């Protein structure tokens, strides 16, 4: 897919995504449980997954860090939005949505342009007499890419939940002795839990399976599970192994959804934006 960037940057990529998403679980399952050479049934692929444990660990760690950073950045934004007038709220909502209307790849490539060794930031640093910094191909760059790309998925569910909190509950808390800090910790925060959980999932799930961000902004030291799946499929050496990996990822997604349902109950907040 690196070979044809212009194609990837346009809508067919999105179509490809949709089709990829819609490929039935059964096909993945079939590949995961068959041998790459003979096509015979085997659990070999599954047992060999251990090999990719470091990449799995890295994926989960980076995605969790990204989700937490998104929460720390996104929560104040979402909360601030709910305090604005309805007109301002609509405007801010649109602003948050705006990056999502642009291609994910374009946005990631823009970061490459900013961070690379001869990129904009380093050029500026040099121009003002500072040394160039190794910004790209670091774990931080990968996490930055994740946070940047998935932040709207955190803000929007948070906003949707916080905006529905009855202002009289806040008055009730004040009436019962809460100063503003306690109002927040005892009422607003617990009531935004469904939004926090759904935002965390919506950042974590795509981040954990991402390959493009780490591919563009990372190095061989930051290879994520998505990169490996991609390599196994695209370089054609073992699609069956890739399928097994994907399956494991999917299980991870299901586990996350399970956690959401457990904490969020049947709140409509857990709904995808």
């Amino acid at each position: 897919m690196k070979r044809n960037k212009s194609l990837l940057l346009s809508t067919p990529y999105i179509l490809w995504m949709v089709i990829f998403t819609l490929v039935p679980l059964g096909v993945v399952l079939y590949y995961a449980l068959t041998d790459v050479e003979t096509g015979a049934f085997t659990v070999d692929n599954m047992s060999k997954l251990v090999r990719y444990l470091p990449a799995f660990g890295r994926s989960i760690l980076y995605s969790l860090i990204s989700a937490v950073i998104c929460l720390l950045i996104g929560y104040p934004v979402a909360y601030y939005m709910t305090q604005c007038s309805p007109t301002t709220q609509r405007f801010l909502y649109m602003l948050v949505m705006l990056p999502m209307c642009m291609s994910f790849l374009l946005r990631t490539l823009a970061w490459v342009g900013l961070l690379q060794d001869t990129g904009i930031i380093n050029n500026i640093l040099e121009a003002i007499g500072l040394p160039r910094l190794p910004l790209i191909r670091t774990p931080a760059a990968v996490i930055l890419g994740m946070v940047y790309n998935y932040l709207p998925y955190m803000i929007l569910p948070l906003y949707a939940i916080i905006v529905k909190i009855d202002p009289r509950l806040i008055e009730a808390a004040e009436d019962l002795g809460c100063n503003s800090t306690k109002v927040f910790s005892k009422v607003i925060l617990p009531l935004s839990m469904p939004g926090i959980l759904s935002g965390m999932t919506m950042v974590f799930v795509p981040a954990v399976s991402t390959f493009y961000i780490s591919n563009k902004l990372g190095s061989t030291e930051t290879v994520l599970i998505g990169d490996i799946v991609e390599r196994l499929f695209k370089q054609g050496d073992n699609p069956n192994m890739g399928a097994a990996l994907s399956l494991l990822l999917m299980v991870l997604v299901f586990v996350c959804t399970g956690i959401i349902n457990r904490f969020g109950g049947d709140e409509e907040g857990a709904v995808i934006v």
Partner: protein
Amino acid sequence: MEFGGERVLDGINLYFNDKEFLTLLGPSGCGKTTTLRIIGGFLQPTSGKVLFDGKSINDVPPYQRQINTVFQRYALFPHLNVYDNIAFGLKVAKLPKEEIHQRVDEMLGVVGLKGYEHRRIDALSGGQQQRVAIARALVNRPKVLLLDEPLAALDLRLRKDMQNELKRIQQVMGITFVYVTHDQEEALSMSDTVVVMDKGRIQQIGRPEDIYNEPKNAFVADFIGESNILDGVMLADYKVKFFGRTFKCLDAGFAPNEPVDVVIRPEDIDFVPPEEGHLTGTVTSVTFKGLNYDIIVDFKGFKWLIQTTDYQPEGATVGIRLNPEDIHIMHKSEYSGMFGDYSSYSAEYDELTEDAEDEEE
């Protein structure tokens, strides 16, 4: 306690006594909820002072006032169960666990919700939620409890039960209750003192009996119960003239020949044979109300409402006698001529006013 306000509230000057059940009564938008919110500290008065035990609490935030509120539609915390809702204020105050437990338990007893500790809030009926809201406020042992139309969301039957319940709780706990309602019956039956408000001003303050029997102006007379309000002239002390006749009354202290509003309560009027009556008129409508008939009688083009158990057919000519104690005289006010004429009477008048005043704010 006193405070004055701007536009929405004008020249409000109120004193709340200890352990008193005081009701702010008035139609929608009369400023009663605003008054309550100022006392609670949720609104800052633009001018004037709120005094509590003689000290100004204008700059004291709500969470530091020894005042708790039962909110309209309760505002219970949906993420907490019954026990944790009631314990909320005590936990914020960081009381020892055993004391919290003991006080919550006691409150559950007072409001009759023992055994409901671990229920979710949304698994409670309106009346039960109401009780939780009251317990949540009272458990903090406030000096003053503010209640903002707490019964508005309940059905009639439950409302009556809760009225008695609230009165009982107030007497048991010995706390000052400041109660906001638009329901005059509720106000009269529960309160020690009723404050009738309209257009951001206090129209009258008094005991329920005084408010009913001695309304200060046409607004109060009309808002509290039903009233026939007529134009009259005070000839001298204890002598009033209306409908071209002079009647004895119990009121004095008016200027000679001062134009006045004359209030006659519909239930104070008794029918007599036409030839014996002070006034005679024609029955234009009869409505059976259960306890009594609402009869509209046309006296010289002015229609009166008469509530009586004494049935009169439509079209009958009837006479009435008015005793001195049936007649109440009021000074003319800005409300004169606005109320007290039943020309446009319809049997639905109760329901109509109910609907119109359903939602405050």
